[in-house]
Structures are given as C-alpha cells and as structure tokens.
C-alpha cells in the first residue's frame, strides 16, 4: 500500500520568526496539534502543542519569543511514493509520532501515529465484518466441507 492511499492531512506551516502566541493561535484555528516550521518553503523543524507546554510554559519561555526556539530540529520525512511498510519503519526507527510527506521536497502532508491507528482499526473492523458474516451466514459452498453422516 502506498502512503498516498492513507488519509494524509494537509500540512500546517509557520515561519520560524513567528511567536509562540501566533503559533498557538494557528494550532487552535487549524485544529491541529503540530505545525511544521519553514524557512521560506524549506522545512526546518516541527513544533507540537506539547513542545509549547514543556519547552515553553514550563521553562518560562516568553510567549512573544520566536517559535524556532522551541521546535524540534532535524525533520525526518518520507517521499509520497514510499509504501506503508516504509512509514511503519520510520515511526519505529526514529521514535517520532508524526512524519511529513514530501513530493519533490515540498511538504504535501503529514501522517501521525494516531492516523495509522485509526487506519488499522478500520481495517480490523472490515475483517471483523467478514468473519461475523461467515459465522452467521455460512456459505452454501461450505456444505461440501460438512462431515458426512455415518451410514
């Protein structure tokens, strides 16, 4: 399965010179928990609502301070052409919860570990429906597999 088959969310980006308050306001408006920090169009980091709490509020970082002072640097990304297995390995190998998806080095989406969990749950639900159907309404063809009564 290709990454593009997943429900990749559109990325929310902000410049590194934005303030913490502006970033928090953007998160609220966009309804997201993380934004990608860019310099021009080049991603330079990522910041989450948790970063704002733990690195900002807890450390008394000024609310009008630059957001790139709080961001995580070194963005691990995946090309949109990679497959689901590659994505799983990235989450596992790099211990991260969000992976930006890039197309020709432009960020086109972001996938979170939560998104994968929702996807996996939906797949499991589909399997469950098939299984329930087979238990409740056995196929006519299954009669051929029924034990032959003793004569």
């Amino acid at each position, binding site marked *: 399965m290709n990454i593009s088959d997943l429900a990749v969310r559109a990325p929310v980006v902000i410049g590194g010179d934005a303030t913490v308050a502006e970033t928090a306001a953007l998160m609220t408006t966009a309804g997201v928990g993380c934004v990608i920090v860019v310099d021009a169009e*080049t991603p330079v980091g990522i910041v989450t609502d948790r970063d704002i709490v733990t690195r900002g509020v807890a450390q008394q970082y000024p609310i009008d301070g630059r957001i790139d002072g709080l961001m995580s*640097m*070194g*963005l691990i*990304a*995946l090309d949109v052409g990679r497959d689901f297995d590659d994505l799983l390995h990235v989450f596992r*190998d*790099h211990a991260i919860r969000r992976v930006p998806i*890039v197309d020709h080095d432009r960020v086109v989406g972001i996938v979170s570990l939560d998104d994968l969990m929702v996807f996996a749950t939906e797949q499991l639900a589909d399997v469950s429906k098939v299984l329930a159907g087979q238990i409740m309404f056995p196929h006519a063809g299954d009669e051929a597999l029924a034990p032959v009564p003793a004569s």
Partner: protein
Amino acid sequence: MFAHVGDELIIEGHRVGEPRRVGKVEEVRGDDGGPPYLVRWDDSGRSTLLFPGADCRIEHLTGAGKDS
C-alpha cells in the same frame, strides 16, 4: 550546510543515554549541496529524507569539503 553523496551525517543524542545517529548521504536534493538529503541510517539500514537541523553535522568523507 552542504554535503556530497557518500558523506557521513551525524546527529548527537539529545538526552543522556540516547545514542548518536549516523548515516550516509545517498542523495543531495538541494541546490549546491544543500538539504534535504536522502540518508541511509547505519542502525536500521533504511533510508529517509532528512531536513537537518542545527544539531546535525556532516563529515565530508569524500574529501570534497570541510565540516559545515
């Protein structure tokens, strides 16, 4: 920051006990050796695209330049 194919890329651990990550640059996608880089990581053997931060350094193993 700039790199060449074959250079070594290193990200030091950010917390006590966190190992450094080392990889080899397989592709340079930016202009003039700039990021992003396709990096094959030594520990996993798999490659990912990296937009490096200030915590990342390049060892120029190909002899084409000095550390950025």
